[in-house]
């Protein structure tokens, strides 16, 4: 389990209860109190491989802005009206393709200890009505569970959401750290979601993450604890044997999991902002994932050629459908023409897709 090399604590939050929880769970780790969080980021930024170093160091501070924000999505594609909750930013795992590597100004794993402000913000947001079920997740700017043994966030959020209506709380992970979850009263409002990939891709591109089997075993335990489950085939990565690779993921998934308990499966082929490419090249020189043919999509992100994307989606879709015809499957950040080619239909727009998620 992850243990940082050092913890920087902003003196402003040294007495916060969240800080106390973190320190109790990290006894023995060296601590430095700082007046200004920039001192910690400057120190890490001055080291060789600041991104790698940032993954080994923890900063506890406060966040003055909003911690619950709509997913920025991406222009000219269908998104899903997701809400991102970010009391933690940064991740000790080290996926080749992780977009967090572009957060140059702060590579540290950063935990915001002003949790009361966050809870107030959520109360306000949940009081507002929306035309579709609200989906809130913590797994966009970190892994939702990899740090849970330190933050115990699941123990705070899962019971909180269990009493709310028209909302689903999603924990998205590539870990198998579910111990905190199993005895909680979730009220069917929490979805535990795993990103999945063939083991060969995990070995090469998802450093430090749990194996596929460990993820599916953890998912089965959550299933037994009555949780709703979701799976993200994202990023689907092209390789000469991608077809067999993803077929075996689908096979394993349905061996472990009863499809009745799966609330959604998303499919998204690997895409990246152009500025991530030099970072991948430098940090992961042996990785082959950016060597494939990419073209700039309408949203400016680099994507596989459309026929290749359509081919991959269609194949994975038919593999899933051969096991179950009903599970809800959607494409992550794709254009209407790709939707139509894959499914034969398309949501009219982002709001239309958001309405398709059921609480």
């Amino acid at each position, binding site marked *: 389990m992850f243990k940082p090399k050092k913890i920087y604590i902003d003196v402003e939050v040294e007495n916060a209860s969240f800080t106390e929880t973190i320190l109790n769970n990290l006894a023995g780790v060296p601590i430095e109190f700082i007046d200004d969080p920039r001192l910690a980021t400057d120190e890490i930024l001055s080291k060789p491989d600041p991104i790698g170093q940032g993954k080994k160091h923890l900063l506890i501070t406060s966040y003055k802005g909003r911690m619950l924000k709509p997913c920025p999505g991406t222009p000219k594609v269908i998104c899903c009206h997701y809400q991102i909750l970010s009391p933690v930013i940064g991740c000790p795992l080290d996926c080749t393709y992780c977009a967090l590597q572009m957060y140059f100004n702060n590579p540290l794993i950063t935990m915001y200890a002003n949790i009361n402000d966050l809870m107030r913000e959520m109360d306000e947001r949940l009081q507002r009505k929306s035309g579709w079920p609200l989906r809130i997740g913590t797994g966009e700017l970190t892994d939702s569970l990899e740090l849970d043994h330190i933050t115990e966030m699941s123990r705070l959020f899962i019971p909180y959401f269990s009493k709310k209506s028209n909302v689903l709380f999603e924990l998205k992970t590539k870990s198998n750290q579910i111990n905190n979850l199993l005895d909680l009263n979730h009220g069917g409002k929490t979805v535990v979601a795993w990103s999945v990939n063939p083991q060969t891709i995990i070995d090469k591109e998802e450093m430090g993450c749990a194996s596929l089997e460990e993820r599916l075993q953890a998912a089965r335990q959550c299933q037994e604890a009555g949780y709703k489950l979701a799976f993200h085939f994202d990023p689907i990565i092209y390789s000469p044997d991608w077809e067999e690779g993803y077929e075996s993921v689908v096979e394993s998934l349905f061996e472990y999991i009863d499809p009745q308990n799966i609330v959604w499966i998303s499919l998204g082929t690997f895409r990246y902002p152009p500025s991530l490419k030099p970072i991948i090249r430098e940090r992961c020189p042996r990785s082959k994932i950016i060597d494939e043919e990419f073209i700039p999509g309408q949203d400016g992100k680099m*994507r596989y050629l*459309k*026929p290749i994307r359509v081919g991959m989606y269609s194949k994975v879709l038919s593999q899933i459908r051969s096991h179950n015809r009903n599970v809800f499957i959607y494409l992550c950040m794709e254009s*209407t023409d790709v939707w139509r080619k894959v499914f034969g239909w398309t949501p009219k727009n982002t709001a239309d897709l958001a309405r398709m998620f059921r609480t």
Partner: protein
Amino acid sequence: MIYKKVPIVEIDLRNDRFRISYMPHRKRLTESIHAIGLIHPIILRTINSTEYCQIISGFQRVQSCIDLNMKQIDSIIYSSDELSDAKALLLSLHQTVTSRAMNLIEKSLCLRKLSEIGHMEEATLITDIMPLLDLEPGKKIFQNVMRLWELDDHLKAYIVENNVALSNAALFSSFSREDQKNLFDLIIPLRLGTNKLKEFLTHIDEIRHRDEIVASQIIDSEMKTILADQNMPTPQKIETIRKRLKEKRFPALAALEKKIQNNLRQLKLPPELSLSIPPFLEGEKLKVDFSFKNEEELREIIIKLTALSRQKELETILEML
């Protein structure tokens, strides 16, 4: 420190410990010394236990004075106890940056000497020296500049003569010595501008990474034949090799574009009609452009458009989007 005229024979001309110049333009300097004499004295340091001095700053001025057959030269002389290596290099650097712009290879040489001879810390080089050299202070740029000095000599000269941008120069240094020679042979005759040079280098770099091969395996016999063709104009050579490299880097896209172009050709569109495909095939709509000057012409175009809508090739193109 003393100031005096020093006979040139007392200067150790082979000692270039503090030289940070690389291929400077000396013609104007020689003309100026010839016209009005040496304005700035050179800086020398005595070499312990010899009667010689080493040059700290003024390698070009000394050479110009020799060319002009001068026998002695105005000099500021430091003893070796007075001036450490680090201080000597800094003196040399300040003298240079205040008198002329330094090229990329000189900047590389200067940073390396300050590090290796002056024992200056990397952090100091980045924060204090890079701005002096007109370089944006930063680790990545620092590393890129440092590596330039290791380039093949031909490439170093090419970078200086063509004022190659740092991003392109840095790309060269990611190749092996052998590959640098091959790249030199490809690029020199084409006289590529900054953007094309970047495109060529990036394609070659990415192909070799993907296929785990070396540059000489990418620069194939077809490209070499094009390069050697005496009758083909350079812009045409550039375009042909560029297309070939693009096909190697993006084979699926190239095949798709070729298929679409074939179908477009078979549509035999009249000159007043044009059909455009969305960039990189992202999008599902084709765009038709046409022009007319009277109602009659418009009616004719409508007839042609209707005929176009029934062509099999159009259907094929639409299916490919």
